[in-house]
């Protein structure tokens, strides 16, 4: 609902707006849906002028229908599939992360969500030489672990350093900070500023539930509104600029059944198009293992319930290798 303003279209002048407002026609929707003959009589404005203004407003503000074949052609040319750096995870996601979609990783604490995110960032930055934006809201981003992963994948130190420079990290601990960071990305991309970022193809958000969870619940519905605003921003970014958006979510325990379920509720479950659940292979914390299983909980392309095994061991999210601690005193 856009408010009628003077500069909105050529025929709309300030006096017209005042007169319309006096007759309670304040927004574009009011204008377009009202009976113009009636309005022209009450406001004593020319009927032709009103019809002209309405035509311009409709052209400006209505959505354009597109034909399925055109849409398909457009998708074929604009969608890219980004490999995650782990062949089994790629297999789960139908060959990789699709741009234009939101993919979600969920799991219990310690199940490897941050590791998979780091691996995705490393693979996109090193393998595809594309820029990655990493929004960290939990403080779990460890650059030394990322460096370890890069060192395992590429031998050349120059390449590793360049790959590190292509990953932009922003620490946002509040939902408004996250929204303003996303807005900033949108502004930069729409201005086509290729200055310091370069071609941005992936946005990784770890984790989205850490900033939204404190707002949900209780009697206030404001938390839900903010969550949906964030969802809209993410989907718009993904669709308009052909980005692959990866988010991580927590799991909570369902109070009635005692089973684990993804956090943020049913409303959020419609936002990502693909959902992957990460679980630890060991039963409890007594068994220390680096093996994890990833199962597909929601996907537009693959059958749900597919499961693969990952190893979030030392070098990579895939290959097990002997353990060596990174930094010692």
């Amino acid at each position, binding site marked *: 609902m*856009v*408010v009628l303003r003077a500069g909105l279209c050529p025929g709309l002048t300030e006096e017209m707006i005042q007169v319309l407002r006096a007759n309670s026609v*304040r*927004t*574009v929707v009011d204008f377009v849906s009202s009976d113009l003959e009636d309005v022209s009589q009450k406001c004593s404005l020319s009927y032709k002028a009103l019809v002209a203004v309405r035509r311009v407003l409709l052209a400006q503000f209505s959505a354009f229908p597109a034909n399925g074949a055109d849409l398909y052609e457009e998708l074929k040319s604009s969608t890219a599939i980004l490999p995650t750096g782990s062949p089994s995870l790629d297999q789960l996601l139908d060959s990789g992360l699709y741009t234009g979609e939101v993919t979600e990783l969920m799991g219990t*604490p*310690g199940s490897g969500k*941050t*590791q998979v995110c780091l691996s995705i960032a490393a693979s996109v930055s090193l393998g595809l030489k594309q820029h990655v934006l990493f929004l960290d809201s*939990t*403080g*779990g*981003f*460890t*650059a*030394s*672990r*990322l*460096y*370890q992963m890069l060192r395992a994948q590429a031998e050349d130190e120059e390449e590793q350093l360049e790959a*590190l420079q292509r*990953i*932009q*990290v*922003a*620490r946002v*601990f*509040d939902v*408004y900070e996250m929204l*303003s*960071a996303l*807005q*900033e990305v*949108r502004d930069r991309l729409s*201005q086509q500023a290729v*200055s*310091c970022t370069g071609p941005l193809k992936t946005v990784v958000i770890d*984790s989205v539930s*850490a*900033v939204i*969870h*404190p707002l949900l*619940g*209780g009697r206030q519905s*404001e938390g839900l*509104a*903010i969550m949906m605003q*964030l969802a809209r*921003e993410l989907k718009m970014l993904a669709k308009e600029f052909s980005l692959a958006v990866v988010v991580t979510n*927590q799991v*909570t*325990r369902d109070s009635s059944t005692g089973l*684990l379920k993804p*956090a943020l509720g049913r409303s959020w479950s419609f936002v990502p198009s693909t959902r992957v659940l990460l679980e630890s292979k060991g039963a*409890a914390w007594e068994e*220390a293992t680096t093996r994890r299983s990833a199962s597909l909980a929601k996907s537009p392309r693959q059958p749900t319930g597919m499961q693969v095994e990952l190893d979030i*061991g030392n070098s990579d999210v895939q290959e097990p290798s002997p353990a060596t*601690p990174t930094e*010692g*005193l």
Partner: protein
Amino acid sequence: MQRAVGSLPLGPALRARLAAAGFQTAQELLDTGPCGLSREIGISKEEALEALQVVRQECSGDAAKTAGGAGTTRKCTALELLEEEQAQGFIITFCSALDNILGGGVQLTKITEVCGAPGVGKTQLCMQLAVDVQIPECFGGVCGEAVFIDTEGSFMVDRAADIAAACVQHCRLIAEAHQEEDHQKALETFSLESILSHIYYFRCRDYIELLAQVYLLPDFLSEHSKVRLVVIDGIAFPFRHDFEDLSLRTRLLNGLAQQLIIIANDHKSAVVLTNQMTTRIGQSQSTLVPALGESWGHAATVRLIFHWDKSQRLATLYKSPSQKESTIPYTITPHGFRDVQPPAVTQNTESTEMNPRKRPRREEEK
């Protein structure tokens, strides 16, 4: 300035009115001006002015970032972060096995959670860390101060004095072995009195006091900028008794976690929390799991679980962004938190192992 009105930090009633009046982007709000705004949505001029101030601040923050200005300190490339991390020190725990599995010690700018059954040594570790954070840089420490927030009343000053005395003794031995200038100079200021005077102690009796203390902590930390460690001993205790509304508890805890991570990040300090254990009753067996629920598990970046194995204390690294899961033994001596000595020497340490406050653990076999 095409920021949607719904994404601005305004109150919900104001936001609802703006949406009803048809405002969609922040630019429209700024164009209308305070008088127009107060007329349109029927609020007072002062409220309109305040709202526009907030909007202007948000949007100018955005503009500065877009223009590449040094507006935020929190955005950088991974390479810069790597350099920062490599230059950052760790807070050592005097138990080299534990330092190894943590990757060097307790990391700054991260939240570390220590869970364990009663009497296993969580408070001992906290007191050890509060002393260790003050070790001067030439001995390998971070030379910072500590904030100790106690909710259970388990901080014993005489025990902390013992630990501090042992630490000073240890550093003195190192200085004598190396005979360097800066070691001697550092030792002059590193004494028992100075260590104890740089541990800022707060006692919180219930969850409201704890929440208030954490809200006030950023101001305290900006005055005392040398603080590098914030310990909250017993974050579970005030939240576990007398709390009827569990969803409120989850919300408060999550909000608390976000506050703590902001503190850890902005002031470059480590936050250490201790948690209790609870029993999860499954179909066939029951397991000991950390308390405060599933969603609290996501709050801490690094999670250590302390447990017993017959009469040996073990520490398991359960969750860490950069280290593998592993388990090591440790022990608590009169000097504080230490490694397990090889068997020949254990005869003496076992008898003096017990923390005077907790009742000694009875062994079944002997």
